């Protein structure tokens, strides 16, 4: 009996011992585990040490600044701007989200037009040329019609931009055109056109009526369709007897570079059109191929302060190749490409991803290209820059 109780007691002691031992083990295991975790976190914090000073400044401002401290979001935007400012590149920029914008467009409804090209001829008449398949064409507007009034308001003293603005309006609404047609230009008639969503071509062209040997080709921007449109325009102009060309790149803000290169290729037979230099000086040359439709036609390119980016490169490249004379005003001066990123909070970031070099390996001057023949726009209704370009082609100076 006694022995048993002893045995029992010793067994109980052993159980207790094991329990204590296990408890100690578990507690210290957890301790060791936690210690490692903490040390890892410390190390991670130390790795971000450089920005540590930033957080010191952040905290000091929050705790001590006498005045209203903007929200963390606003201060973050500020920090981003401060960082980007260091790059000293005016095109790498951060834009805060603008929630109002999309909303506004949606509310305004789709924007429509009638699908015509219009310009003033030598006698200052407004000439129309409907796009193929446009509402204007469907309503009966023909190439060469004169526009006299829009919704009964005469267009005699209006600029081309003002007339375009009057033709634009909400999709589905009507616009009343007062027109006349060449054999009987003094006999006005009216047509009603319903505005529709218009795919505006990036290219418009015609033979100049004052000199039908000159083809006029305006490119408003470089889209994926532009090379095809230019090719069609060139075939049409050459077929109609154009022997020299004026390319209007005024107000062409650029667009995609590959289409611009493809368009240049129509005017060149060989050589480099431009170089693109990316991060880490990785370089890519865009080359011209044989068989350009207009590789030997005399060219004048019209430029102005809104001729930017891809269109400046086109003007600059053709000039370096001795293929074109530039008439007008100094160009914008932006020879770089930006990628646009939408960030997680809806803000966007433009990052300069590459710069372009002209065929002589010079970058585009920051002050833009200086025209060979500088011509100010002039205030009146006539296009003095176009006039000067025509004179250059006719007289060679």
């Amino acid at each position, binding site marked *: 009996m006694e022995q048993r109780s002893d045995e029992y007691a010793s067994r109980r002691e052993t159980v207790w011992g094991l329990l204590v031992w296990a408890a100690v083990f578990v507690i*210290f295991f957890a301790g060791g585990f936690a210690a490692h975790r903490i040390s890892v976190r410390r190390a991670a914090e130390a790795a971000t040490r450089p*920005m540590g*000073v930033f957080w*010191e*400044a952040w905290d000091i*401002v929050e705790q001590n*600044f006498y005045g209203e401290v903007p929200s963390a979001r606003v201060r973050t935007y500020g920090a*981003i701007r401060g960082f980007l400012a*260091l790059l000293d590149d005016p095109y790498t920029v951060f834009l805060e989200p603008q929630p109002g914008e999309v909303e506004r467009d949606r509310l305004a409804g789709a924007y429509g037009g009638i699908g015509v090209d219009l310009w003033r001829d030598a006698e200052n008449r407004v000439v129309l040329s409907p796009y193929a398949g446009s509402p204007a064409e469907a309503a009966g507007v023909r190439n060469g019609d004169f526009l006299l009034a829009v919704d009964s308001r005469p267009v005699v003293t209006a600029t081309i931009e003002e007339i375009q603005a009057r033709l634009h309006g909400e999709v589905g609404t009507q616009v009343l055109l007062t027109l006349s047609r060449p054999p009987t230009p003094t006999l006005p008639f009216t047509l009603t056109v319903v505005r529709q969503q218009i795919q505006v071509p990036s290219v418009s062209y015609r033979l100049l009526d004052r000199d039908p040997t000159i083809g006029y080709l305006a490119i408003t921007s470089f889209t994926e369709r532009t090379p095809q449109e230019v090719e069609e325009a060139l075939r049409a102009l050459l077929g109609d007897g154009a022997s020299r060309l004026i390319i209007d790149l005024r107000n062409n803000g650029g667009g995609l570079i590959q289409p611009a290169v493809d368009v240049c290729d129509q005017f060149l037979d060989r050589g480099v059109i431009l170089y693109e230099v990316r*991060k880490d000086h990785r370089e890519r040359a865009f080359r011209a191929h044989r068989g350009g439709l207009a590789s030997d036609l005399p060219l004048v390119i019209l430029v102005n302060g809104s001729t930017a980016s891809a269109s400046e490169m086109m003007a600059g490249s053709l000039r370096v190749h001795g293929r074109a004379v530039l008439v007008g005003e100094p160009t914008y001066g932006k020879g770089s490409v930006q990628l646009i990123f939408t960030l997680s909070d809806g803000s966007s970031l433009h990052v300069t991803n590459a710069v372009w070099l002209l065929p002589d390996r010079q970058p585009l001057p920051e002050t833009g290209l200086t025209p060979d023949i500088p011509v100010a726009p002039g205030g009146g209704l006539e296009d003095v820059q176009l006039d000067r370009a025509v004179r250059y082609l006719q007289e060679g100076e």
Partner: protein
Amino acid sequence: MQKKAIQIILVAALLILTAGTAFAVGFGTSMLLQRRMETAVVTPAPSSTPSPTETPFVPPTPARPEEETFQLFWEVWQIVKENYYGDLPDMQTVTYGAIRGMLETLGDEYTSFIEPDIAAILEEDASGSFQGIGAFVQMREDGKLEIVSVIEGSPAEAAGLQGGDLVVAVDGQSIVGYSLYEAIILIRGPAGTDVTLTIERPGQEGTFDVTVTRARIEIPVVEWEMRDDGIGYVHLREFSAVATDQLEEALRQILAEHPKGLILDLRDNPGGWLDQAIQVADLFLGDGVVLIERSYEGEEIFRSYDGDIAEDVPLVVLVNGGSASASEIVAGAIQARDRGILLGEQTLGKGSVQRPYRLSDGSELRVTIARWYTPDDVAIHGQGLTPDIEVPFPEDTPPGEDPQLDRAVEYLLTGE
């Protein structure tokens, strides 16, 4: 008994051993888990072009809500790093740029960030003395460092340097094109050491070298003169840590000659320490309020007390658009308490107080922590003080002439 003791020791040893092992195993388990997690994350996405020079930077995981918001910064940083055409500045420069951008959003031009090198120089200057050669310098537009004047009794004066000299090199290293502070860093150094300056002197051919032994230089902030017409004149350049001492010493000498009146010139004095401003004001003022400071900690009233040396002498304070901060505190108190008149032009209007904070890398953050008001509770922030007698200083004033000083003398002599 002994057996029991051994038993206890054995049990204790076993427990300690257990604890140690458990700790090590716990630590090791966490480490193994961590490593497995890292490999799981890292291996599937190896860099296609491994570049050994570039240390991968992993944006920190946010530890608090604000860092969550700040993740947008890292998003931008990552995109720019991967896509930007040009080179990225180093992380320190990025940090400083981010701090400046963040401070910009506060809309307070006086809350500012100063990089370590410049912070060290400014701090030394504000202390009232520094170790160097003892010359006032400025950076010219052509990138050459010009000696404006040399401090009296300084090594620069002893070495024959003079105002107008251009420093083109320091210890053989050209400093043309350096910033002002980069140049100053090279010229300053411990007292007793030598520095060789290459000097271009206007009107002389070529350059020549001058070796100067650096010393501890007390920056003179006070200039004074006892004029023949019986008026004392004292000019305080800035409110450095030695301003009150130097000013009191000058006043002692002027007052010993019993002047008819005193002119305190605070024109172009950009300010300095708040405590110096209060002590300087106290030199001229008896019992009363010097300024009221309001911060988030509440309102604090700073006072002056009877018993200073210049509390009775008729007083005119000269001010202009360059009189700022501490200068405006002194001028504002003297004007508000009718102790004297202000003469000259409207002052700058900086009615805020900044406190300098030293950051861990030696840079300095100056944060606006309070606004101050004159004894009659008028805020001068953005307004400035309007002189009792406005006297312009025309651009075309011939050198050596000072219409404001002349008018002050006239006022003290005639009483109007």
